[in-house]
Every structure is written in structure tokens, then in C-alpha cells.
């Protein structure tokens, strides 16, 4: 396999779908996780248990549910979203949001005592306090982002079901690997797998550099 235009297209779509779903997952999961980490209210335990359960949601199950929702005969069929990149993003958002929320919650919770009182005594509003604590807990939150990214980019069951692996439309790296394997092109499948691994490595390296810088600045 050479890095032909088709292969670049597949890699590019993988990155697009994954980063979109991780960004949306961050927007939804971080504030929600932070809220859960800071406040207690009745029924919180149940929600926490649910989030932890959803962190391990089987992708194929998410795939089937999103498929049924988006199907032409399903409740959201009129939007014509099935077998599109948008459908893949929806499925991945469902997968990564609990991961973001759960890990943010854990990170915020561990910082809560140390900073809550200080921020409050300095006269911070609830929103400011939340932002302060999110900033202080960013190491843990970044590891949540890394976990979410790794989960999303290597995921195959859900994107295969709702995306359909359509060439030039919804074919991403993982589904391309499945196809190459099924047609007997093991070499091409393996090479795509290595590209996938390299991308994960690069992404996690960036995160690591960011976290290292943060640790250094804190020491000063």
C-alpha cells in the first residue's frame, strides 16, 4: 500500500470524525463532569454509576441504537443521516462523552478541597470557581481527552454500522482495515493499522508535552 490519494482521504476522514466527536464530547462531558465533581445532590450516586457504566459501552450496541434511531424507518429517519459522516460522529460522541465526563469528574473531585475554599474566599462567582477548578484539574482532564481520542479513532463496530464503510464517503481507517482483511490484502490492512498506531502516538505525544509543560510551570 502506498499513501495514495485514496488512503490519505481515509486517514483524513478518520481524523475529522474523531476530532469532531472528541471536541463535542469535551464540550458536553467536561462541564458535566466538573459539575458532578463539585456538587452533591440526591441521586448523584446513581448518575455516577451510570457514567462509569457508559464509559465501557460496547461500541456495537451504540452502533445498533444509533442505526435504529437514524434509519429511514426510525424516529429520526427524516434527517437522512444514516450512512453519513455525521452519523459516525453522533455514535462516537455517545461513546466518548461518558469517558470525558467520568475522568473529568474524578480529576475535579481530587482538586476540589484544595481550591474550592481559596477561590470562594477570593470572592469568585460559581462559574469562575468552576473554571478555576477545571483549570487546576487539567492534567486529569487531558488524560480523559487522550482516552476519548484513543477510543474514538480505534473504534470500528459503531462506525461500520452507522457509517457503512462507503468509499469516498464514510470509509475510515478501521473500516478500511476490515475491508482489506476481508479481501485478503493483509499487507494493506497491516500498513493502515501502523498508520493508525502512529497517529495515536503523535496525538498522545502532543498531550504529553502539554502535560509536562504544565507540571513544570506548577513547580516554579
Amino acid at each position, binding site marked *: 500500500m502506498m499513501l495514495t490519494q485514496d488512503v490519505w482521504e481515509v486517514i483524513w476522514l478518520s481524523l475529522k470524525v474523531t476530532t469532531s466527536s472528541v471536541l463535542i464530547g469535551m464540550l458536553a462531558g467536561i462541564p458535566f463532569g466538573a459539575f458532578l465533581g463539585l456538587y452533591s445532590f440526591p441521586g448523584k450516586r446513581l448518575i455516577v454509576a451510570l457514567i462509569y457504566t457508559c464509559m465501557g459501552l460496547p461500541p456495537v450496541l451504540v452502533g445498533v441504537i444509533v442505526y435504529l434511531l437514524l*434509519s*429511514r424507518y426510525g424516529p429520526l429517519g427524516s434527517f437522512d443521516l444514516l*450512512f453519513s459522516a455525521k452519523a459516525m460522529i453522533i455514535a462516537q460522541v455517545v461513546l466518548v462523552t461518558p469517558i470525558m465526563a467520568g475522568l473529568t469528574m474524578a480529576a475535579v473531585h481530587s482538586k476540589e478541597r484544595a481550591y474550592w475554599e481559596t477561590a470562594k474566599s477570593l470572592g469568585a462567582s460559581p462559574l469562575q470557581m468552576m473554571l478555576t477548578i477545571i483549570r487546576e484539574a487539567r492534567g486529569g482532564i487531558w488524560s480523559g481527552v487522550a482516552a476519548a481520542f484513543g477510543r474514538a479513532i480505534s473504534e470500528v463496530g459503531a462506525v461500520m454500522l452507522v457509517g*457503512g464503510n*462507503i*468509499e469516498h464517503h464514510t470509509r475510515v481507517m478501521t473500516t*478500511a482495515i476490515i475491508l482489506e482483511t*476481508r479481501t485478503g490484502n493483509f499487507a494493506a490492512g497491516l500498513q493502515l493499522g501502523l498508520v493508525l498506531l502512529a497517529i495515536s502516538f503523535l496525538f498522545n505525544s502532543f498531550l504529553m508535552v502539554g502535560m509536562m509543560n504544565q507540571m513544570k510551570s506548577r513547580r516554579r
Partner: protein
Amino acid sequence: MKHLRIVTSFLMLSLFLLLSACSSQTPQQPSAAAPAPEKKEAKEITLATTTSTQDSGLLDYLLPIFEQQSAIKVKVVAVGTGQAIKLGEDGNADVLLVHARKSEDEFVAKGFGINAYDVMYNQFYIVGPADDPAGVKQVQTAKEAFGKIAEKKVTFISRGDDSGTDKKEKSIWTEAKIKPDNSWYLSSGQGMGETLQMTDEKKAYTLTDEATFLSRKLNLAVVMQGDKSLLNPYGIIQVKSSTKQEEGMKLIEFFTGAEGQKLIGQFGQKDYGKGLFVPNAKKR
């Protein structure tokens, strides 16, 4: 010196014991001793086949009968024809049951396969939305049908997985001298079942094998059938590098023999009102 004598006599003694053990066992089971170990070693063979034979239920129906008669277990690996043939080339399967005549002939010509037989055939259908937006029902041949679809630019979904069905579809496009345009021609890269599902969802057309189509309940209609170019012959081939020649041949004999052929012809009659496959065993 003394040491050596002790060791030697010990060795002699153990040799004697070993020999006597052997000779005392042999007469106990004189007839069963020879064929029994052979059977135990090679009781299992691998059949690489296409998804259509498994998804249609044909193998679930035939193989238990074979296994009972021959005491040979058949492990089925159901993949696309492309991969099935690759499995044969790499020696990971003992027998192939596939439907892509050109690739099958190449497989045999390259020296990977021996004892190739025709087994059965069924038909391909062109299926699409019941209201037939491309007007495929007005034409007579598969070639013309594809022409209509291309002309009206109605979505067509290709399996694009190098399977037998996929190869057939590609050959019809070539025959019709049409180069499908990416704007309406989608390559799903998946099996027949998934592709049919997608075709239904997208109100598109596709080429499907009869068996998979009939075993699915979808809102798709057959818009073209019966054209000669839509025949779908299946072949069974033995892998030359297989270490289980005898067992593999037994399976081939079962599929192409009188009983197997009769069973193939009957398969599906109860559920669909007609057989899903037409037996036509012949050595190539």
C-alpha cells in the same frame, strides 16, 4: 567400568520392557490399530466459502448430514470470495466453495487448486425501490439495466469487497462500457446483507444474489432477473497444499454426488416456494 555395565544393563532392560509392551499391545486390537490413529488426526477440515452459502443457511443444512456420514468435522470460514481464495493460496483452508469463475480458474491454473467441480448455481437479481425510479423494468438485459441506472444517476450501491457478487457487478459495468460516477455510485465495502440494508435505506439499486435477497425481508423489489449474464455458478475446489486430501475429497464428493445434489436442489423449497440453488455438478 562397573558403572558402564550397570547403565548398559539398565538400558537393555528398559528396551526389552518397551518392546514387550509393544508386542503385547498389538495382538489385542489387530484390526483397529491401523486406521484408527489416522482418523483421529484428520477429523477436521476447513472449508473457506463465501458469505452467501452460510448466510442463506445452506451449509447449516448440508454439513451436519455430511459430518454424520463421514465423521469428518467441517470448520466453515465464511468470508468474501477474495479472501476465501487467499485462504486457499496460503494453505489456511482445505477446500474452497466459491463463486467467481475467473478467479477460480486462475487459482487452479497457478497450481494452488486441484479437483475443481461445478456444484450449483443460482441467479443474481438487480433489486431496487419498488417504484423503480430508473425504469429498469422496461429493459431486457442486465447491461441495459445498468445503463438506465447510470443515465438517471440513481444511487447504486456496490459491495466493493472483491467478492463474487462484486466481481459480477463490475464485469457488467465493463460490459456496458460505463464508468460509474462517484456521485451516485457508492462502494459499501461490506457483505451482501449489509449492502442490501443500505440499499433499502438509501432507496438505491444493487446487484444481489438470490439466496441472500430472499432470506432478508426488505422493502426492495426485484427489477431485473433471468438474464443469462446474471447466472451465478458456484465451484468447489480442493486446495493442493492441503494435508487432508482424503477428507477434502470426501467433502467434494458429497457436494457433487447424487445425495448432496438432491439436498441442494431441495434447500429452501419449503420456505421460499423454490430452491435457492440449482444443482449442476460437473467436473471441470
